[in-house]
């Protein structure tokens, strides 16, 4: 029984980090305009969109995974579209995992950013406008620095949540080494094979990782610490 992580484990770790980084960047891109819209809109669609974004918090991952699988599968609307576009089918690929993880972790990124943007209030943006800042300029020079703690919290939570997911990955990605077998799945495999020592390396690593991430979050983010 090997005491140290083997190449399969390292592959899973590398894949997990690649997935989490890709998903985090994608989440920031998607969540920022979405959070901005939710924070500012008067539209009645706001509540519907808020509820949809928050669904992954309450739904079991298997439910989300199941429907995404159907949606992205050969008979699903998204599946038909990706096939027509020549991308092929997304389930059981890294790209499929990225899409599913992005949806699954969306509320953890949207909500902190939305809260941070709402906390700014209208005045700083009014001041920026009276100082000749265009709305785009004011977004970067006022909203981003004001909401920085929200962005940081969102990014860290999105990253950590993606690293920690299991159910959705299993449903949509399966267990393909180097492509969809992330750390949480690898641990499951080790446990199933009764290779507890190897499971410990990865599981203990995850515990340490989670602690360090949260510690960094609270240290770097004075506002989060105050709350």
């Amino acid at each position, binding site marked *: 029984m090997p005491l140290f992580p083997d190449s399969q484990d390292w592959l899973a770790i590398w894949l997990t980090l690649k997935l989490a980084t890709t998903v985090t960047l994608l989440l920031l891109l998607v969540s920022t305009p979405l959070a901005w819209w939710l924070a500012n809109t008067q539209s009645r669609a706001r509540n519907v969109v808020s509820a949809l974004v928050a669904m992954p918090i309450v739904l079991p991952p298997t439910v989300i995974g199941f429907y995404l699988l159907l949606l992205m599968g050969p008979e699903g609307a998204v599946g038909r579209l990706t096939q027509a576009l020549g991308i092929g089918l997304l389930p059981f690929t890294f790209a499929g995992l990225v899409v599913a993880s992005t949806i699954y972790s969306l509320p953890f990124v949207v909500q902190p950013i939305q809260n941070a943007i709402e906390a700014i209030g209208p*005045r700083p943006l*009014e001041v920026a*406008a*009276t*100082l*000749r*800042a*265009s709305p785009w*300029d004011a977004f970067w020079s006022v909203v981003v*620095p004001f909401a920085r703690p929200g962005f940081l919290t969102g990014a860290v939570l999105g990253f950590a949540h993606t690293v920690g997911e299991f159910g959705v990955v299993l449903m949509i990605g399966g267990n393909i080494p180097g492509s969809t077998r992330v750390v949480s799945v690898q641990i499951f495999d080790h446990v199933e094979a009764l290779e507890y020592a190897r499971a410990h390396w990865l599981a203990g690593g995850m515990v340490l990782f989670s602690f360090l991430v949260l510690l960094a979050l609270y240290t770097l983010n004075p506002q989060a610490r105050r709350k």
Partner: protein
Amino acid sequence: MSDQQILLRLQHRYPGFSLDADLALPGRGVTVLFGHSGSGKTTLLRCVAGLERAAHAKLSVNGEVWQDDARQLFVPTWQRPIGVVFQEASLFPHLDVRGNLAYGIKRARVTDGAAALPNVAAQLGIDHLLDRATDRLSGGERQRVAIARALLTQPRLLLMDEPLSALDAARKQEILPYLERLHDELEIPMLYVTHQLEEAARLADHLVLLEQGRVIASAPLGEALARLDLPLARDHEAGVVIDAKVLGHDAVWHLTHLRFAGGDISVSQRALEIGRAVRVRILARDVSIALSGDLASSIQNRFACVVRDLAPADDPSQCLVGLVAAGVPLFARVTRRAADQLELAPGRAVWAQVKAVALLE
């Protein structure tokens, strides 16, 4: 000259409130928008700034049109050459004082903006604070930084929305002199919102009186303050502001003599150069009326006047007496019994005795 004017016509409605204004304001000097809370004065200012968009409006400032709904024209706030000072300083906390000042300079693309920074900072007494974080400033300092920040964009219109109301009395007195200097030196028009009569008296050249979304008066300050038909005259602090010049100093009695069109006024000695223009404020409650000027009295500021009009005061025992001293309007608040016994009526020649005069530098 209609080019050197602020022309504003607007109708703005939302549930429970409507604002209606049609104003032609001077293109230089300070116009104070005065009224109680809910009178619409701040909304009016926000419409001029473009922070709020009135449904039907036409606004032009010294010849430049900023909004004209007949032509679907609306210049957004960030493209209007304005400087705005809000009630709270609203400094950017992620920038230090210098960063806050530089924010507008950079974006307004003004010539010599960076060169103007030390001068404006010195003018507002914040030159020693430039490298401070904004959370290490006092309330008065913060507001002075906000004023400097607005001035440094070299606006063509300055807007101030109750800039002193969030400050305590001491901080107010700290900032007022800076605002008064602005008033003297500024080449551009300023709209200043307040509900404090004292601020209006010290800063305004022109006064716009708002009540429940309607303009009830728009006139030069001296004229507006002396009108007995306006609610201002019923304020406890009601009174007039008179422009005077320093005539001379009396070292023996420690007095400074001032002269205005209607006569001379003595106040306790102040270090002011002779010939300097000053404002004095005379409250209606400090003016008494006598029929003769040679009366021996401890009240020595006395001028010959003619009664212009009479109006009831809020207190049923009192009335307001409008007076004119050689063309300069002022008014007194006296008891109705006194008015009756002195047979005060329009046209009657009397003497105004002024118990207290506030010199507004």
